[in-house]
């Protein structure tokens, strides 16, 4: 949300006139309102849980360590966010993460080193993402259906690869990714932050990111502007696949095992984080930075509740309620906002599609 006023003075009179064009450049930094709300929520949560649960803060280190648990969700949410930015969705990303975890575990079990395990896991997940992208972008099928189907196919593959006894007990050179830290900062958190920065840069500062955003806002206008829609969509699903692979690796490292359903629980929090972060499910609107904040909001919320003693199932339910709640609030706010804007715009707005005849 910007702070510049959107009401053009020119609307009240025909454009011919002496008023000089006041196309001022915006101030360098704008404070995003929703981001502030999320930040406040995080601080509030941390304060609340520190006060009510002894084990939570652990002198600050505890708070940092907790991020290891939801860093995988965060990475997944970042990939999802890019896809949702274009107005599509990837329901298979969580299963993809599971597959990646299983593959990493299998490579480790067979004696491969951590590097090989990570490479294999991410590579496979990226290929899955590529498949999704090709079917959506080139064959032209709705992403909901495609990824719903791929989700189930990958689940079978993961279960099959995992076999009767899924891999577990990995060398510490691997598990340190998910369980230990550099000085005070958990490696998983570092990975998440680095990826978050990369995604923010890609979305905000690269041609691909700009293309994705424009596609999300208006695919037709994007086409007429010469934006390579098929290439961009294929890329974004591939990227989402890659990030799902990273999430899977983090999961395997954290849990020190690779059950074929290890990632299933990530889908709901992932989507919730994206929506809570203010992204529009229909595409276009949204900032990755706020999604990152939302990841922390949800992450600390569920961790805090876990430590308090709530079951993980009620956490699932609460997350579901947060998902619904976030959208209800957003819709109500927007409807109100839209009504006020419409009242102002009625005088100024040209119907964007005037009749051929006039």
């Amino acid at each position, binding site marked *: 949300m910007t702070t510049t006023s959107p*009401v053009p003075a020119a609307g009240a009179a025909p454009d*011919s006139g002496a*008023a000089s*064009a006041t196309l001022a450049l*915006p101030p360098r930094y704008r404070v995003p309102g929703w981001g502030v709300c999320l930040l406040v929520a995080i601080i509030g949560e941390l304060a609340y849980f520190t006060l009510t649960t002894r084990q939570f803060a652990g002198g600050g280190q505890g708070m940092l360590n907790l991020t290891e648990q939801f860093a995988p969700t965060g990475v997944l949410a970042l990939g999802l966010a890019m896809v949702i930015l274009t107005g599509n969705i990837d329901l298979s990303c969580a299963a993809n993460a599971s597959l990646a975890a299983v593959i990493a575990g299998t490579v480790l079990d067979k004696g491969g080193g951590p590097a090989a395990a990570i490479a294999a896991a991410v590579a496979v997940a990226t290929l899955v993402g590529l498949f999704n992208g090709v079917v959506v972008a080139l064959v032209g099928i709705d992403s909901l259906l495609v990824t719903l189907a791929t989700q189930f196919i990958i689940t079978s593959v993961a279960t099959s690869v995992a076999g009767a006894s899924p891999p577990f007990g990995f060398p510490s050179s691997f598990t340190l990714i998910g369980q230990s830290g550099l000085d005070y900062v958990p490696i998983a958190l570092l990975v998440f932050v680095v990826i978050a920065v990369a995604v923010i840069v890609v979305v905000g500062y690269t041609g691909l990111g700009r293309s994705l955003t424009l596609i999300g806002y*208006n695919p037709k206008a994007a086409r007429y502007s010469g934006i390579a829609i098929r290439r961009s969509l294929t890329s974004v699903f591939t990227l989402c696949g890659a990030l799902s692979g990273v999430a899977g690796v983090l999961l395997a490292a954290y849990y020190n095992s690779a059950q074929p359903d290890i990632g299933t629980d990530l889908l709901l929090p992932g989507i919730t984080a994206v929506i809570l972060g203010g992204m529009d499910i229909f595409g276009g609107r949204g900032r990755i930075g706020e999604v990152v904040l939302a990841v922390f909001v949800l992450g600390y919320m569920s961790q805090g509740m876990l430590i308090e003693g709530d079951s993980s199932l009620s956490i699932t339910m609460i997350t579901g309620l947060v998902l619904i709640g976030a959208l209800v609030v957003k819709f109500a706010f927007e409807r109100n906002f839209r009504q006020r804007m419409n009242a102002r715009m009625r005088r100024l707005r040209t119907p964007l599609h005037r009749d051929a005849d*006039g």
Partner: protein
Amino acid sequence: MADHEAGAGADYQARGITKLFADTPVLRDVTVHFRPGEIHSLIGENGAGKSTLLKIMAGVYPSDAGTLSLGGQTLPPLTPRDAQRHGIYLVPQEPRLMPDLSVAENLYLGALPTGRLGTVAWRRMIDTTDSLISTVGLRADPRLPAGQLSLAQQQLLECARALSHGCGIIFFDEPTSPLTAHDAEQLFELMRRLRDQGLTLGFISHRLDEIEAISDRITVLRDGVVVAREDGTTATRENLVTAMIGRTLSIARRAVRARAPGEVMLEVDDLVSPPEVDGMSVRVRAGEVVGLAGLVGSGRTEFAEALFGIRATAGGTVTVNGADITGATPRQCIDAGLIYLAEDRGRNGIFADVDIGRNATSAIVGRLPRLAGTFMRPRKELELARSAAAEMDVRASSITAAMKTLSGGNQQKALLSRWMLAKPRVAIFDEPTRGVDIGAKESIYAIISSLADSGLAALVISSELEELVRICDRVYSVYEGRITGEVAGDAVTLEALGQLAVGA
């Protein structure tokens, strides 16, 4: 619940109707009287306000001033459903039917006939549909999904809907533009029959021969004002054309070209893109402004879209600045120097919720200044957009204002800044001043002119003849996907274009 006798016509008057779209008056104090047992035609150029008037009278738009009176009684503000209940129905230009539902269901949409127990009476519905659609001359199986009907059949179905609602006042908004002569004749037979039954009929068409053949009365609109009322039997074509295009006022003031046109920048040979484009050849030189005149539905926009890679081509070649770009994608066209300002700005042009800056740079994302070759530089980009927009005289509070907050004229100028940032050699402007007020129109004409002066090869598609006369050096006329004529220099006059455009 109908306020009228089923299927009986009535007096329906519009008095003093005024309508503005964002401060652009589209209708000014218009009074038109539709009587039962008459086919009353509205004619005028595009933008004259004919369609808007009928839409107001059918409840699709509210008017800003004036009254509607039915049978002597003033009506309250209408919605389409209210209008239907009063017996008024507008057959739209593009039939809007449910493609997967059967013809019968489309006919009775929202009011399916029910039998005992309140269940849908299919047998009865199909039988009545059969008889009803045969009265309009539609021969189709009532069980067929409506999406499988031809356009002409869909239009007849819309007429049948009007009758099924018991409407006695039926308006036809340009029903014949996409129809063949045969289908149009079928429609006219229907209209004459309805007229003889005493219904009140309104009709819009661009084709003067049709108007002459079928009208009992003719009202001519120009620029939102009634300029002539004629009787169908005594009207002459000269009178009608003169009334439509008006006297030659300052609009005939044509820019004197200080430069001689340069090389051929756009060369199109025999372009075919079924079914609308049937072999069109066009040449535009650097520094020339060339117009494409024609009726709605003549295939001009389809032609442009085929050039620009939005539509598939089935034959012919396109050369821009010497390079063959036949079948190229939009991106390739832009990179080769060809840009296209789309006709439907709202759907295909602007990103409504995106700021002006990003709208302006959307066509040159790949060419923006980069850090280390990859990373965009928002400040520089904004500066670029800002100066481009300022050059086009876009009036807005800030470059970060959302595009949808701009008036039509400013949006169009912002789009022009987008396309000019792409540094084209050839530009196709499709209806560049549609939905734009007078001041911005002048502005846009000046922009196009100065761009041509700097060497741009401009192709202007417009349904406003005055516009073409004003800014074009040469004008092709297009009819049903073919070039039917070309006038150049001093021969570009309103009269000449008027004759060509109305199929005379």
